[in-house]
């Protein structure tokens, strides 16, 4: 599986040679191109960090191996992206976004099998977002070099997503959704109000009846 999965990097390697030999671009990349490059770079950094975390904390060889693969392939994608950014004069952020860092920290608060479950779910989410952003670049981007990067990244991210989903399926579908432990919404009936009104009514009824009976007795 590892050997096969590396094959999708061949176009990336070929593109690397192309980017290195290309003359400096004449036209500046569009806002969309720059936005995608910055987001893709942060995603690569986030996936590398997540891959390293999996190698340290995952309980199954399968998840550890996915982590190792993500480190290797996102490092390679990011090398090409960084070289292109230098040529195009695009500034790249130095670290994953605050949200990406927060998400990884939340996954790392789990241990044992719960870590694997949380890691796979988080990675499906982050790769879905990366794929959607890359597709948006392919539809709306303009710079040829950046579009080549997006084209080369697409099958890599798609393959990761497929492998993550295959791995998640091995855990089966949820057999229970433990959706509440408080009992507050079970207390929301109007029973208490109803009984209070009933009590008040009974008092009024008794007082009124007693008054009527007393009057009739005194007037008779």
């Amino acid at each position, binding site marked *: 599986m590892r050997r096969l999965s590396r094959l999708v990097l061949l176009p990336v390697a070929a593109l690397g040679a192309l980017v290195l030999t290309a003359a400096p671009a004449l036209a500046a990349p569009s806002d969309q191109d720059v936005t995608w490059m910055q987001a893709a770079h942060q995603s690569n950094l986030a996936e590398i960090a997540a891959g390293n975390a999996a190698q340290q904390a995952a309980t199954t060889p399968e998840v550890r191996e996915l982590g190792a693969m993500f480190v290797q392939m996102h490092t390679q994608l990011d090398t090409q992206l960084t070289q292109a950014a230098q040529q195009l004069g695009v500034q790249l952020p130095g670290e994953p976004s605050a949200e990406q860092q927060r998400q990884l920290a939340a996954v790392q608060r789990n241990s044992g099998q719960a870590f694997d479950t949380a890691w796979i*779910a988080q990675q499906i989410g982050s790769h879905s977002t990366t794929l959607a952003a890359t597709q948006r670049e392919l539809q709306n981007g303009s710079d040829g070099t950046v579009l080549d990067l997006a084209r080369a990244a697409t099958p890599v991210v798609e393959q990761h997503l497929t492998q993550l989903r295959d791995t998640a399926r091995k855990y089966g579908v949820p057999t229970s959704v433990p959706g509440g432990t408080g009992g507050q919404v079970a207390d929301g009936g109007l029973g208490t109000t109803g009984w209070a009104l009933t009590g*008040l*009514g009974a008092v009024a009824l008794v007082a009124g009846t007693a*008054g009527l009976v007393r009057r009739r007795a005194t007037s008779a």
Partner: protein
Amino acid sequence: MNRPRLRHLVLVVAGTVLVGSGLALTRVPPRADAPDIGPPVAAAAAAPELPSETPDAVPPPPPELPPPPPPVAAAPVTVSLPAAPEPVPLVPVGVLASGALQLPERPTVLGWYAAGAVPGDAAGTAVIAGHVDSARYGAGPLEGLLDLGEGDLVEVTDATGDTHRYAVTARTSFAKSALPAELFRADGPPQLALVTCGGAFDERTGNYADNVVVVAVPVT
């Protein structure tokens, strides 16, 4: 008729009304016992019937351009519910070894079942689940699911800023052990399923008896 007699009569009438309305209020069920609406969820999750014939009044578009790639949705980040004042944050979640969905501890953060469909996908059920309440943190925005009606709008915003709109079609309560597995299928018609707890609350175990499932379909 003299005035004290009138006063006592008023007391009797008011008392009778209060007793009657009070007793009626005690019959109002707790909010957790949300009544079913729309077709049962299992029926809604079944594969759609294909139209037997398509009308040929409209000519097919010229087949010149290659079909655009099917749009892929980014990971969902918030969901807006009619009863919640603000969008509710979402995190990707998976299945634990116990078979339980690994839901966020706080009812103010909901889980998106990452191995299922992504909200905005062309097919499959996207599942969003969470605690209706918590012994530690109190009730959360999902208690609004118990009051939703047919046609109410639910909006999911994804990580690229796109919004996916759904309209509620059904609400069904299941005994927790009878939650249908079809709910978690990644194929079939596109829909959103919101899952939480309801029904009777067992103070001893701290668990509800039922899962409440609200199904919503995409609005274009």
